[in-house]
């Protein structure tokens, strides 16, 4: 019975559905956090979670069960039977960019807090409308 479940779970189709469901679940949590939370750090956390969700979705769906990491190791001497390296390169860049932007955002928030003592989104109304 357990082997049956294990066998079922190992099919590529099922893995891909699990990945989609999982990452979209994470995306949902991030989106929910973005819309409901007002504290700046919470907003940045939810943006971070949304980003990670998209990255997991991308890498998860581009992963083929049988293939190994796109690197030559002791067992693999030629570039065959390997996962597609392009998504890895893209996600690598995207993570660094995401983190740079969030770090900048946090420094804006710190400076803003120092000047005005506000750390929530709905308090941010410096400009009269």
């Amino acid at each position, binding site marked *: 019975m357990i082997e049956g479940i294990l066998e079922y779970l190992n099919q590529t189709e099922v893995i*891909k559905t699990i990945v*989609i469901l999982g990452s979209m679940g994470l*995306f949902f949590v991030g989106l929910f956090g973005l819309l409901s939370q007002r504290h700046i750090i919470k907003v940045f956390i939810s943006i971070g979670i949304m980003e990670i969700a998209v990255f997991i979705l991308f890498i998860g769906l581009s992963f083929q069960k049988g293939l190994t990491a796109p690197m030559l190791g002791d067992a693999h001497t030629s570039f065959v039977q390997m996962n597609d390296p392009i998504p890895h390169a893209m996600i690598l860049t995207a993570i660094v960019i995401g983190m740079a932007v969030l770090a900048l955002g946090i420094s*804006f928030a710190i400076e803003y807090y*120092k000047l005005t003592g506000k750390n929530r989104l709905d308090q941010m109304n410096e400009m009269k409308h």
Partner: protein
Amino acid sequence: MNIKRDISTTTLSSFTLSAFFVLTVLSILLQNIPQKLFSAGDSLLKLNSDQGVANAVTTVVVYFRGFDTLGEIAVLFIASFGIGLMLTSQTHGDKNKVKSNFMLQLGARLLFPIIILFGVYVMTFGHLSVGGGFQGGVIIASAVLLMFVSSNHFHLSHRVVEVLETFAGISYVMIGLIGLIVVDSFLGNFLPHNISQLGLLLSGGIVPIIYIIIGIKVGSEMSLIVQNMLQRSDND
């Protein structure tokens, strides 16, 4: 976490909104799950076999799609000096930083060289094993962070780090321009990079060199970010 706290209308509305949006996207995604198809990656893998670089991701990041990495370095560069611009206004005066106890100082002084060594390893062997410029640079920055935590008045001299950073940046773009002149394509691989020397340190032509330069740049920038974040400037 007490369940009974009042669920205000905003959380409710945002919950339903985001749920509805994600469900519709999910339904579309589940219907057409992408099949494995002959993608650009496989052809790149074949191309990579004669690049003399063991780690396919590194060649893609640095050589095949080197332009993105150049852009990414620009983003990091702008972010780091943006944070520097923002946070150097005034080091808040409270000096009541707790004096870190002796164990932490000793341990940090012991660990610092090891982490730096690990960072340098990850950086230089980027094209042969996992890792590369970015990861190595940040590991070095985390080592610097460790030293910040361990002693209150440890600080990097701004001048040295800046020289390192400008040297790395200029040499990166210069390599690209030399590639343009020599191999008539920006960031072209003009150094010999045949498969025979696989495994040697400089076997991948400009790939390892660029990755080391990226490592230096990212390392210095990240440590600058860390220093700014911790509000340590040269004077205190």
